[in-house]
């Protein structure tokens, strides 16, 4: 909040310094609540995994807990680093390119690690119930993902050409080290969501299923909303005519969705823990 902000940033979203601080504060408060929800979710999930001991599903939930931990820290740490780096560039303009590159790679690292680990967990669960995705689900998933990927690649390349290369990288580097890893991470995350939903549908136990459905719905919501946040941030960056209100509204929608997801995971994990404790 107290770190300096460049006039260029203010001009790009058509607001003055006072409006910037109001906007930053109004985003910061819900953001802190989401961090809390995310930390709460991973602590409960890891607690549940520990309670399972040597049960066959224990490693799966331990992986999911670890993935959620990375997502929770991934919400806090990159945001703090980004704010510090941006404020540094106000005084030292020669650092703009370095700051942008560091921000982009840190932002990429979080979904790449988190979704890979969550994917490992959901694969174990799928194997346990011998859940196989139906051909219609796979075809629909492929269609949606290909559309999503082509649009993302086109928008990123468009931004590279029109917006004077905001990534400060060469085109091959953008494709190889940003576009492909992002698409890979999103694919893993969305596929893990599908597997998790499949497991929740197939597993037996009325009461167990109720609790697990909350976890599955939460994981699907968190992965989908965090993917959409990353996705739409690229669209935002390319649209010069967007006002602060529309930026704020869009951020709020995704942040609220993510928070709902984390709360649902916490609630489900708490119920699962109770089953193991009584």
């Amino acid at each position, binding site marked *: 909040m107290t770190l300096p902000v460049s006039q260029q940033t203010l001009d790009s979203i058509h607001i003055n310094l006072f409006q910037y601080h109001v906007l930053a504060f109004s985003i910061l408060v819900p953001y802190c609540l989401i961090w809390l929800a995310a930390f709460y979710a991973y602590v409960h999930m890891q607690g549940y995994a520990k309670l399972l001991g040597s*049960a*066959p*599903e224990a490693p799966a939930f331990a992986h999911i807990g670890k993935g959620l931990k990375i997502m929770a820290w991934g919400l806090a740490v990159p945001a703090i680093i980004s704010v510090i780096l941006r404020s540094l560039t106000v005084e030292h303009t020669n650092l703009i390119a370095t700051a942008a590159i560091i921000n982009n790679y840190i932002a990429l690292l979080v979904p790449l690690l988190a979704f890979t680990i969550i994917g490992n967990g959901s694969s174990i669960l799928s194997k346990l119930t011998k859940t196989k995705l139906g051909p219609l689900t796979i075809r629909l998933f492929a269609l949606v993902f290909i559309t999503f990927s082509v649009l993302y690649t086109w928008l990123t390349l468009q931004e590279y050409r029109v917006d004077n290369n905001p990534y400060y990288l060469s085109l091959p580097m953008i494709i190889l080290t940003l576009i492909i890893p992002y698409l890979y991470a999103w694919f893993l995350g969305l596929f893990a969501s599908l597997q998790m939903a499949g497991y929740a549908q197939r597993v037996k*136990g*009325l*009461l*167990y299923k*109720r609790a697990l459905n909350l976890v599955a719905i939460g994981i699907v919501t968190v992965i989908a909303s965090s993917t959409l946040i990353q996705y739409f941030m690229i669209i935002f960056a390319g649209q010069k005519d967007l006002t602060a209100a529309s930026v704020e509204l869009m951020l709020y929608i995704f942040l609220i969705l993510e928070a709902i997801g984390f709360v649902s995971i916490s609630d489900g994990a708490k119920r699962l823990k109770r*089953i*193991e404790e009584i």
Partner: protein
Amino acid sequence: MIEGTLYKRVVSVTHVYLGPAADRFIARQVQNHLNKQPEDLCAKDLEKLIDWIRMAVSLLTEDNEIIEEYIQQLTLLTRQTDKSVYNRA
């Protein structure tokens, strides 16, 4: 024969409600409340075990319909076990 598999039958009924947690749940109830090893569960323990299970499950859900259905399934086991003991006698 029945007594040897009684624990498995209780777990099998519980599986409908607690899924993969069923085995661990019943083992805990037997160990903590009956002070026995799960494999030592016998017909005369069932009534007491069902009381403990009712209490435990009511802490997991407020859905009385599910609780009553579960307890009814377990009570059926008691009757089957009684009949089996009677037939053998």
